[in-house]
């Protein structure tokens, strides 16, 4: 049970990288990243992004997550009061170790992406026993 009152935060824009084909802003999603000995889990808030508009890209140890939003306003609507901006999401991470790409699991629910990145066998920590000489 949480007792904390939520505070609003302005969304942070992603650093510009090259030119984008799609117009509009790009924001950095807020993330939680945690690890267990077996896997790494990444949870990202990407409100407005449907399930089929999430892209994951892993090259070597470079992970990029991105999501495209569906424009929230229908044609014929005019904005009268705006407190937040809308736009796509993108964020990049450098993974410090090897991920078993074949076993990656991704789920998207209510604008929250959850990514399970299982570690490759050789990346798992091992306990090293010191033998008496």
């Amino acid at each position, binding site marked *: 049970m949480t007792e904390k009152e939520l505070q609003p935060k302005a969304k942070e824009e992603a650093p510009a990288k090259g030119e984008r084909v799609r117009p509009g802003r790009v924001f950095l999603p807020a993330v*939680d990243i945690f690890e267990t000995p077996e896997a790494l889990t990444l949870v990202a808030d990407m409100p407005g992004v449907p399930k089929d508009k999430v892209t994951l890209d892993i090259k070597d140890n470079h992970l990029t997550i991105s999501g495209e939003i569906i424009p929230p306003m229908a044609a014929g609507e005019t904005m009268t009061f705006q407190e937040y901006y809308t736009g796509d999401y993108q964020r990049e991470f450098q993974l410090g170790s090897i991920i078993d790409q074949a076993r990656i699991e991704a789920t998207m629910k209510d604008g929250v992406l959850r990514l399970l990145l299982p570690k490759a066998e050789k990346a798992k920590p091992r306990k090293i026993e010191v033998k008496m000489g």
Partner: protein
Amino acid sequence: MPIFTFREPGWSPLQEMERLQRRMGRLFEETYAPGMARWRPGVYPLVNISEDHDYLYVRAELPGVNPQELEITVHEGNLILRGERKIPSEEKNINYHRRERESGYFRRVLSLPSPVNPDKVEASYKDGILTVKLAKPEEIKPRVVKVQSA
């Protein structure tokens, strides 16, 4: 000792300066941009209000909120949004690298820019976005006025 290290690629103090500069620029832009509410630490959740001929739409970004935890009330020209964002706790044996997502409760009273029919309010929740659709009463809907020739 962490087995995994996480850092944003290409971090450098110079880039950080650039980022700061961009944010400052954006701050000015947002403060003086027409149509944009002057950004101030408001009340969660932030909302965008739009309208068309028949309805007023109030939208808020509430990712990962169970729609059943949302309570929406219309009362005397005010829209009240209450709810709680829960982040289920993970297993005990984990180590966090980043923890930016926040949980907690919220209650916001919003005074609506125009009168609405309290009996015709619909709320929907999709992909983490809450949309409250409020019908305008007949008497405030825009009307086309025809010019009559004398």
